[in-house]
């Protein structure tokens, strides 16, 4: 407010209003506060993180530059030192299991954490840097001057907040970005629903069942556990609980005639999963949407006086073996904060003045990864990956390890061919999909 020499009745309440104190919003507010801008961080929940659920692993490398030695203080559950990918059918499971003890030492790789803990911690960092955090307040719309966004309306009495820039970090439904006209009409095929149970178990039981010690933990991604609905499953270890959940394609879920908790119950009773969760008690059930299609569904990121970051901009990376949204939210939120701070300082918060946001995203992992993996969400949701791959992989293993004496052992090539045939996969299609996968992930 000191950046105007003449007293000005048009001086806004804040340089910037950030809507949503998830990881994107808190990272944006932190950068703005550090740059000396006045910033309000608005959250509709009673505390940051209270509305937020996810699978369970945060990849912290993006925090290194924001909060040095963050691992000494971040409220985490366990450091992930084992990552497994499981392909399953009704009664089979093939698991690729990788363990790295390097991931259990500073600077670490990923950690399980509860979002109500983690989000509140990150928001407190922004607050400590000077951001004004206001909880229990829902932004209900945008304030405009012509086309220009000049603030937000809230559900508090006299709750209008004016600002030079509004940063929408309001998550997957982002009504603000939609209201600003930055999104085309939404297509449910771009979204998935996540459901999850947090299941309480004693620490020692988890250590034994998952073969980990101390604060080390496990991340299991599962394919082939969602029936006819394209999607996937996950199982993560917290300190004294497990997170078991599913991600389900919206239109197919709506059509399939089965409810999410029924599909989840089937996963929980699978012979590869049931012994891991046995005796545990459901501590919390939760649900949330994911902007699954990533790059291909991203909105316009910049408007006159407005920026969009995190899930609000579909920046969650859902590419099968990777489900990363928190790190992309922090990366994009920080970039939005830096770009807004610069624009405010230069007194040009128009679309052009805020253009630095896109340049920053292009220069770091956010857009680079998303562009590179733009076909991955579609590939992962394809029939081949969802139905044929798990069945063929498990079928091959079954045949390979079933001893058929006195019949001689069949050759591997023959087994693969017979399994492909059994699952109606033509060699031609397998090769073309394989090439596509190599191009996407390569």
């Amino acid at each position, binding site marked *: 407010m000191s950046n105007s020499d003449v007293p000005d009745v048009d001086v806004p309440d804040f340089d910037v209003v950030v809507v949503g104190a998830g990881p994107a919003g808190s990272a944006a507010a932190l950068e703005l506060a550090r740059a000396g801008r006045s910033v309000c961080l608005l959250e*509709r*929940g*009673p505390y940051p*993180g*209270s*509305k*937020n*659920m*996810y699978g369970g692993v945060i990849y912290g490398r993006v925090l290194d530059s924001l909060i040095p030695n963050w691992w000494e203080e971040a409220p985490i559950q366990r450091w992930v030192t084992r990552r497994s990918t499981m392909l399953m059918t*009704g*009664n089979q499971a093939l698991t690729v299991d990788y363990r790295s003890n390097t991931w259990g030492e500073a600077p670490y790789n990923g950690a399980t954490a*509860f*979002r*109500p803990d983690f989000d509140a911690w990150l928001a407190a960092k922004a607050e400590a840097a000077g951001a004004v955090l206001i*909880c*229990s*307040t*829902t932004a*209900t719309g945008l304030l405009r001057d012509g086309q220009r966004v000049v603030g937000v309306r*809230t*559900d*508090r009495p006299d709750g209008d907040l004016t600002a030079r820039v509004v940063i929408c970090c309001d998550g*997957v*439904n982002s*009504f603000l970005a939609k209201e600003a006209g930055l999104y085309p009409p*939404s297509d*449910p095929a771009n979204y998935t*629903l996540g459901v*999850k*149970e*947090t299941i309480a178990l004693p620490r020692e039981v988890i250590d034994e069942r998952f073969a980990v010690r101390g604060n080390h933990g496990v991340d299991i991604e599962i394919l082939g556990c969602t029936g006819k609905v394209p999607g996937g499953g996950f199982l993560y270890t*917290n300190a004294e609980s497990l*997170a078991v959940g599913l991600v389900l394609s*919206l*239109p197919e*879920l*709506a*059509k*399939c005639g*089965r*409810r*999410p*908790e029924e599909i989840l*119950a*089937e996963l*929980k*009773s*699978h012979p590869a999963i*049931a012994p891991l*969760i*046995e*005796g545990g008690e*459901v*501590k*919390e*059930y*939760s*649900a*949330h*949407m994911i902007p699954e299609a990533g790059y291909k569904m991203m909105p316009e990121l910049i408007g006159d006086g407005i920026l969009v970051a995190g899930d609000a901009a579909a920046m969650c990376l859902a590419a099968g073996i990777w489900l990363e949204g928190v790190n992309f939210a922090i990366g994009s939120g920080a970039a939005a904060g830096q770009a807004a701070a610069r624009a405010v300082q230069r007194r040009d918060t128009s679309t052009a003045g805020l253009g630095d946001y896109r340049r920053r995203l292009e220069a770091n992992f956010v857009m680079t990864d998303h562009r590179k993996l733009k076909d991955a969400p579609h590939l992962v949701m394809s029939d081949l990956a969802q139905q044929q791959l798990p069945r063929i992989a498990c079928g091959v293993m079954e045949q390979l390890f079933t001893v058929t004496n006195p019949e001689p052992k069949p050759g591997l090539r023959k087994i693969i061919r017979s399994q492909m045939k059994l699952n109606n996969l033509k060699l031609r299609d397998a090769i073309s999909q394989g090439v596509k996968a190599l191009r996407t992930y390569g």
Partner: protein
Amino acid sequence: MSTDAYPEISFESRMSSVEFRVSEQAHITVDGKKCADCSTRGCITACPANLFVPTADGGILFNYELCFECGTCYMVCNEEGAITWSYPEGGHGVVFHSS
């Protein structure tokens, strides 16, 4: 395939594990008249909180109180204007603790 060793919990006890600070004001309303014409009824299977209950006369009974605020229902809804959706007033609605 479900075994007796790990009995599934009822939907009620599943939902009783979640804290809801229920607002007096409904944040979602459903126009049952529109639902009568709907052929897909995706909300019934997709809503994770199971809040859309079909009635005998072909309508839908809806109660907003135990809602995750996920957005699935308006996304899959077939009939323009059947669902009016917004977030609950600040500080109300679902509150997660260990998710």
